[in-house]
């Protein structure tokens, strides 16, 4: 079988089962298929135990698939050991060699390839410059900060010029501020070296910030693959809508379908709601309606004769850029709404107040009708 050469990594129907210590088996990866393009920044995103790290380890060769194939640069990997694969890994724990200096750590991979001494020296120097740690070569890893160790792990992997760089939550151990800096730096670095990055994270914001494409995983399955915009604006199921960003869910049943417009009979609210069809829907099907908090309008009176519901403000929080408002449509339906503060004013009526009667206006394009879990 010949695969398209534009793909750096391909998973074909990959299954990975582990024996459970208590007996039986655990399915970590359940028939996953995906294709990662050359030069892409591709993220595997999901909660812990979703199979993202196992997928990465399968690509690295630390595990072998129970079934299915992993291809790297068109080559079926089978049981090829890690030391023969054209990939390198940045480990979550960094896994730096504590008994070696930083420079020896970075040189290790080149020594294994029997690169000449002067060439090693030159490339190690370049790699250290690339991660802006040119002067720390003589230190031991323990003498460096977490952020610096992270950069060394990166340099140690990149100095090998792999076809694919695999990153397993590399920023997980850093504090928030440093993490944000490193996110941008990693993205710039990836653009600079042009190497395909496969990035495992459970942090949806991190995945949205850095990736060209994201695969959202849950319970060993890939639920959706798409660009950050696609994943956020057009999730294909309730899990993806819930996991990426914040959203409000209202539940109901499909009453009619007209192209991509779907009308839903709501469970706890009298009236119907019109929205965008996402995923496979049929009449009578139970659905979850997802409406992002920043995509809801608040108004004095209904804007049109559908998709407008009266409510009462429960509480408000002014956070500078936004005013966050919680509105109850009834005892069972509560919506979180973020109103951007586009006008600078001290007028308190602009920022809403507790107990205020108000109309919630939902534009059909902002209302996503998804199959319920």
């Amino acid at each position: 079988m010949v695969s398209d050469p534009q793909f750096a990594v391909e998973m074909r129907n990959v299954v990975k089962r582990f024996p459970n210590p208590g007996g039986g088996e655990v399915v970590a990866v359940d028939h996953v298929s995906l294709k990662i393009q050359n030069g892409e920044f591709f993220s595997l995103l999901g909660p812990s135990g979703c199979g993202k790290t196992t997928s990465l380890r399968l690509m690295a060769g630390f595990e072998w698939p129970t079934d299915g194939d992993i291809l790297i640069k068109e080559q079926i990997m089978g049981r090829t050991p890690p030391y023969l694969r054209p990939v390198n890994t940045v480990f979550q724990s960094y896994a730096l060699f504590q008994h070696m200096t930083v420079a020896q750590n970075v040189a290790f991979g080149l020594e294994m390839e029997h690169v000449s001494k002067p060439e090693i020296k030159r490339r190690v120097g370049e790699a250290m410059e690339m991660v802006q740690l040119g002067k720390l070569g003589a230190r031991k890893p323990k003498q460096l900060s977490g952020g610096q160790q992270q950069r060394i792990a990166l340099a140690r992997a990149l100095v090998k010029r792999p076809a694919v760089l695999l990153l397993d939550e590399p920023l997980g151990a850093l504090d928030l501020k440093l993490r944000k800096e490193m996110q941008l730096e990693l993205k710039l670095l990836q653009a600079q070296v042009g190497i395909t990055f496969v990035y495992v994270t459970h942090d949806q914001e991190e995945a949205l910030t850095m990736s060209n494409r994201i695969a959202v995983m849950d319970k060993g399955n890939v639920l959706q693959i798409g660009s950050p915009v696609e994943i956020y604006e057009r999730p294909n199921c309730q899990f993806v809508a819930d996991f990426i960003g914040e959203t409000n869910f209202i539940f109901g049943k499909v009453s009619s379908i007209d192209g991509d417009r779907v009308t839903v009979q709501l469970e706890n609210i009298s009236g119907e709601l019109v929205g965008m069809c996402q995923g496979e829907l049929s009449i009578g099907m139970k659905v979850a309606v997802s409406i992002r908090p920043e995509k809801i309008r608040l108004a004095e009176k209904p804007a049109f004769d559908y998709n407008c519901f009266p409510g009462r403000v429960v509480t408000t929080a002014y956070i500078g850029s936004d005013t966050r408002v919680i509105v109850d449509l009834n005892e069972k339906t509560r919506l979180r709404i973020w109103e951007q503060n586009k006008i600078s004013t001290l007028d308190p009526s602009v920022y809403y107040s507790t107990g205020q009667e108000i109309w919630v206006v939902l534009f059909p394009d902002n209302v996503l009708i998804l199959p319920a879990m």
Partner: protein
Amino acid sequence: MSTTPEKGSRNFVAAVLSRLREDPSAQGLALVSPTLLYLLIFMILPLIMVVVISFLSRGTYGDIEFNLNLGNYVRLIDPLYLRVLSYSIKTAALTTIITILVGYPLAYYIARVPARQRSRLLFLILVPFWTNFIIRIYAWIMILRTEGILNNLLASLGIINTPLYILYTPLAVQIAMVYEFLPFMVLPLYTSLEKIENAQLEAAADLGARPWRAFLRVTLPLSIPGMIAGSILVFIPAMGMFVVPDLMGGAKSVLIGNLIRNQFLTARDWPFGSAASMLLLLLTLAVTLIYTRKAGFGEDLLV
């Protein structure tokens, strides 16, 4: 006005108590003082006695004459005793090397099996300590003697026609000493091997190291602290060993431990025995220091 003795002692107790309440270093001293006292009485004082006696000389009836001299140390330079000394160092060094070679794969294996099996295997290593050392040595005599288990087995398998003479040779001493000291090598080796994260080995493989190179470049250097600790635990007692050569070595294998024991118990020459003890002490100290320096007994290796 003078204080009565009773009042004075009461003042002293009060002063000590208030000092203990306020001064953390005094509290620390109070906590270790039972240990200090024990060491002072049972280790430091006897050691000083040995040092002093080594400079005295033997009386006619095995008593000690108080005339300071270096005679005992001069006697030790005799080629006969130097040979005993070099044989002791050789035996202890060989024991250390063989326990490393035999113990390393064992410790490696234990460190790599699932956690539940690990404690079971470590338990098995400690089981021999339930029986007295002397009894275990007699067991080895049963195995190695001319009509012993080993010779009978080899003869019945047709491998040998005439029995092997192992018992009462230096080889028998070596076998029993490796057997005795193996756990002292395996346990520290296991501790340092077990500490090596799996991710370190994965990183080595990921960077292109085949298993054997990953072992030489990552596992082996990271296990050196355990090897040093084990070597010290084996080499020092092996230098002073006298039971094994006594029971299994015959007349030919005299270690410095036997020499010292004989001076005290048989020849009743305490001053010469003390001098030999001092030599053993200094030699062990020197070898241990050189070895740990050479092997890079650095702070960073111990972490």
